[in-house]
């Protein structure tokens, strides 16, 4: 297949270009002196300065981070516990039911998840005669809800792959079941837990639709702030924001990639026969 090398390289490059072109444009125009997003006048960092003076945006960034940290931590703990429990289920129908329920938030379109939660919160709010039914707390609940399946999805396979004789050996050597879990099982599934945590964090950071429907009390997350910004005319300030996000994400992914390399499967040793 050496002959198709050039064609395949070209095709791959084209797709990458397609995927990254808009991002490249974002980055370039974030340094635009003028207000335009399609005509470049001169290079300048003025929009970055404006961005850092924009207290509303900075507040929304803070909100987003708080929300993401809280949601990812809670969902990781609950999700890991859930995965541990699911792994030990004996009855088939219960297992199947768990699988289905866990899948629902992943398969359902965001808009359905968002609407359903919103309606429930509104109803409950009215039922209890609360003034506002949506707030940071409703958003937190929503975020935890959509993060949980992904955590479970990362931890459960690790549990299944784990050698079951490890905790048994621990108990054999004198540990109580509880300590056996923490000393023998948890370290084994830790990669899955960490991956789940990171996934939950990034999902929460990036979520727009579900946050949009469950927001209240003026608690804005960054995506919602961006949405509101784009409803009016947009200046390169938003591009500056996007560029920063881009580089943060790029770094994050590269770092996790390098870490992943260490506990990735050992490179196939070329077996010589």
């Amino acid at each position: 297949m050496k002959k198709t090398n050039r064609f395949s390289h070209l095709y791959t490059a084209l797709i990458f270009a397609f995927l990254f072109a808009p991002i490249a444009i974002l980055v370039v125009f974030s340094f635009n002196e003028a207000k335009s997003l399609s005509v470049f006048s001169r290079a300048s960092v003025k929009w970055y300065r404006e961005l850092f003076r924009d207290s509303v945006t900075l507040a929304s960034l803070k909100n987003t981070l708080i929300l993401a940290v809280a949601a990812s931590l809670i969902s990781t703990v609950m999700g890991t516990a859930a995965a541990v429990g699911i792994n030990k289920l004996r009855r088939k129908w219960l297992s199947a039911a768990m699988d289905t329920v866990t899948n629902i938030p992943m398969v359902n379109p965001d808009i359905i998840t968002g609407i359903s939660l919103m309606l429930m919160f509104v109803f409950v709010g009215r039922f209890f005669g609360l003034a506002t039914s949506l707030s940071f707390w409703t958003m937190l609940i929503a975020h935890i809800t959509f993060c949980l399946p992904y955590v479970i999805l990362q931890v459960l396979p690790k549990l299944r792959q784990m050698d079951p004789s490890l905790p048994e050996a621990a108990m054999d050597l004198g540990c109580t079941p509880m300590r056996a879990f923490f000393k023998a099982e948890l370290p084994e599934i830790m990669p899955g837990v960490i991956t789940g945590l990171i996934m939950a964090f990034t999902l929460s950071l990036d979520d727009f639709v579900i946050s949009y429907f469950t927001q209240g009390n003026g608690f804005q997350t960054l995506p919602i702030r961006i949405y509101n910004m784009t409803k009016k005319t947009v200046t390169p300030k938003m591009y500056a924001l996007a560029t920063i996000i881009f580089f943060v994400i790029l770094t994050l992914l590269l770092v996790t990639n390098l870490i992943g390399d260490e506990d990735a499967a050992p490179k196939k040793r070329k077996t010589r026969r």
Partner: protein
Amino acid sequence: MQKIIELKNITKSFDGEVVLDRINLDIYDHEFLTLLGPSGCGKTTMLRLIGGFETPDEGEIVFLGETINDVPPHKRNVNTVFQKYALFPHLNVYENIAFPLREQKVARDEIDRRVKEMLSLVALNGFEKRNVTRLSGGQQQRVAIARALISHPRVLLLDEPLGALDLKLRKDMQTELKRIQQTTGITFVFVTHDQEEALSMSDTIVVMDGGRIQQIGSSIDIYNEPVNAFVADFIGESNIIDGVMLEDRRVRMSGHTFDCLDTGFERNEPVDVVVRPEDVDIVPPECGMLRGVVTSVTFMGVHYEIIVDINGFKWMIQTTDFVDVDERIGISLEPDAIHIMKKSEFSGMFGDYSSFSNEFDELNEPSPDAESEERG
């Protein structure tokens, strides 16, 4: 007999390591040839070179007189049975076997006829519609063989196909493979590390180590007349002792002069002497050619395996007679029990039964002074 494949000066390296070193081998039509050797000796690479999945760094692969170095696998008249069978999970038994014929656009009733023929050959009649992933190891094995044979290749390559089967099934499959080879007359090139398997199935055995061919011959030749210490140790059990060839048919080892059958060595040439454990006779110490003390006795069912310390060297004897540990015994050797080999790079590495494995050899490694005492 016609030569069907010739490997000429084949050299192949991976990652800077030489895996095959100037290999020359002729494979004849209709023969069952086995490439035998330990892991890493290069046998699978050789197979893949013939199949077309690797290209040699140097040398030529000749098929019926034509060099085929650059011919891709799908154009070679050679088929492979893979170690883990590589059956297509999305196709049933019939479709797996019919795969090459469908690729050749053979007519439907022709395909039908030939698939049924193959199923008979491998004794899987009635299995047409079965799901390949649910078959047993032996059954999958046979589907893989049928699939590889259906387009009548001139040569069939088999990459340790019986490794995953349990012992009794393996023995049956060995017989099956031999039968199929003789029925179809197709040249089989078989790779294994199991010397018993090689001995029982092959017309020709090629013993390999470290990327080089150590010996080529029939089972009997290789067993009775190994060419160096490696082959002697790899095939069956051998006691390998330092000796000096005094003259034709007389060799001195361990302080005693023995009559033997080998000629062709120089006077007083240092040699390796091979004595198979089953060829050693135990006699009372006074009558023995050599004397020693028994250090261990293990009951193996078929015979006793006895380790005897003779002048610092541990011999292994296989016998149905019982002796006690710490007993003093004598041994006697018939002339045809002794086989002489030239010294090679393998001399001194094998043949002493202080331990069986390399790992334990290293643990038991004597200091350099003690080693020189053992010689002669």
